[in-house]
């Protein structure tokens, strides 16, 4: 689809295609602690096993680390974004995950990072029951906070968390000459994308190697199976129509979930630009023909604009 007047960035072809993404709901959880290290430990536990909403019920990742002057209680923190299908489900998952990984974690407190969102789900308002009626609440600037007694001292958690419309499944594919090149390009894309606020990369280290197609050729029960058209080891196999150009022997994908379209666009732009390195043959994207997800990110339009990172 790249055509004769296709787009090229630093010798890497940008395929004329689009990423297809979906409506989701998102919350932003701010975890503060005595040190950045402890905030990160809680955030890592909270965002584990949260790669795909189908398998894990949520997609979550670390958005940013926060300096002490950027947080509500003047301590260092980490901002986590959590994505789910709907507000109710997301609220339940927040109660589970904050209860298991923040309430339990030494020195942490937990705040809502979307105070302007009109839709709100109870998190502290549910977890307060752990305090067994010894908890107390404080009302500051129109927001309620719960002080829950724990063995270490107290856990401070906000009563309600904002939930907003968001987008899941922004993506691009890095088609490279070999595995080492694909990984190095993906790593540099991840580094660039992690500087963008309002997005997360939910997969391990921000990268997916197991791209999937809808359904399976060999089973009607399976909802997804390996994307054989992009598997280099299946090129030339009977029953496989490979999409891989000559010289491509490894493909990695970056999946990005974001609070809004501009955030995903910034991240895709920065990531694709960083991935255009020697040994990378092509950048493409995953879609389902455009009929499943209402958010389309055409790569050529994206890359025609200058990258935010310059």
């Amino acid at each position, binding site marked *: 689809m790249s055509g004769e007047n296709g787009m090229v960035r630093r010798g890497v072809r940008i395929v004329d295609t689009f990423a297809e993404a979906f409506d989701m709901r998102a919350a932003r959880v701010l975890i503060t602690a*005595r040190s950045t290290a402890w905030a990160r*430990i809680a955030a*890592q*536990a909270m*965002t*584990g*096993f*949260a*790669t795909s909403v189908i*398998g*894990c019920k949520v997609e979550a990742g670390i958005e940013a680390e926060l300096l002490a002057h950027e947080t509500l209680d003047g301590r260092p923190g980490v901002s986590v974004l959590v994505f789910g299908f709907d507000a109710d489900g997301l609220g339940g998952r927040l109660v*589970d*995950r904050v*209860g*298991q*990984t923040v309430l*339990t*974690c*030494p020195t942490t407190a937990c705040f809502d990072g979307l105070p302007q969102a009109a839709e709100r789900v109870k998190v502290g308002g549910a977890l307060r*029951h*752990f*305090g*067994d*009626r*010894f908890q107390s609440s404080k009302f500051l600037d129109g927001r309620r906070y719960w002080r*829950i*007694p*724990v*063995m*270490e*001292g*107290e*856990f401070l958690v906000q009563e309600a968390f904002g939930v907003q419309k968001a987008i899941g499944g922004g993506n691009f594919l890095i088609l490279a000459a070999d*595995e080492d090149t*694909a*990984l190095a390009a993906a790593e540099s894309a991840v580094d660039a994308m992690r500087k963008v606020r309002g997005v997360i990369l939910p*997969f*391990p*280290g921000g*990268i997916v*190697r*197991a*791209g999937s197609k809808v359904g*399976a*050729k*060999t*089973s009607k029960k*399976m909802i*997804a*199976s*390996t*994307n*054989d058209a992009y*598997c*280099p080891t*299946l090129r030339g*196999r009977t029953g496989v129509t490979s999409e891989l150009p000559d010289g491509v022997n*490894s*493909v*990695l994908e970056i999946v990005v979930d974001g609070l809004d379209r501009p955030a995903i666009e910034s991240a895709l732009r920065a990531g694709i630009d960083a991935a255009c390195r020697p040994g990378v043959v092509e950048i493409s994207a995953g879609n389902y023909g455009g009929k499943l997800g209402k958010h389309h990110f055409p790569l050529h339009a994206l890359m025609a604009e200058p990258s935010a990172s310059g």
Partner: protein
Amino acid sequence: MTNRSVFIEDTFAEGFTMRAARIVVTAKNERWAREAALKFTGFATSVTVCKCEAAIERMLPPEETPDARPGASILIFSTDTNGLGKRLVERIGQTVLTCPTANCFDGLPDSPDRVPAGRALRVFGDKFQISKVVGGRRYWRVPVMEGECLLQESFGIEKDGIGGGNFLILAEDADSALGAAEAAVAAIDGMPGVILPFPGGIVRSGSKVGSRGYTSLVASTNDAYCPTLRLTTASALPEGVNSVLEIVLDGLSADAIGQAMRIGIDAACRPGVRAITAGNYGGNLGPHHFHLRRIMAGDAA
């Protein structure tokens, strides 16, 4: 009994029988083995809500792994074999199959009880997967965009794993409690056959069974050990104790837990710590009792 002037209470930790598996994740380098292992072991603090408890047992040098690459050894615990098998399929499928350069091997090869996690995941290959039998074990090569994911067909289950080993650090202030708990975690880190499933290895929110305030609640804050409730409840805290942290341990055997408790408690006996105690339910719920004084005297658990 005291250890370096820290009082060791005459009590015991009460542990429960659980099923355990050991997963060896290898990758191109230690960084990617750790990325997969961190995602695998996240949100796995307590079996009641997370359906499993998991953490990194230790990082492995290339000479200790089946494919001679750097790796991470993970222990994962659940209440029954069937459930543990499902958790393996979910977590390996979401966090190892997807992770660049990662392979996944069974770390309990001698266990006769096995769950077919790799066999279940092979179908992602849409019949393009291939199996190899090497040394009597079957492995699946599942084609992915990067190349291939190598997965062992079945994983051994330890039916006599133990969950809920624990000890509590009673300290003068929050900083002393955290310093002692961090020292305990550092001492236990890397010991074979045990994991600390909570964030950073430490729990600050110990719980009691049930609740006085809400009948539907299965567990609520352990008010007897909450320093801010000293005057409003029947406190179990000695004078001068103002912060308490707990270390929870899951292990492949009572011996592994007992050894780790001894090393961890010893490391936690620092200035600013007043006493070490442990959590139990009177001894009637869990069959494994870890008596602190026997452990610190060097007796087997």
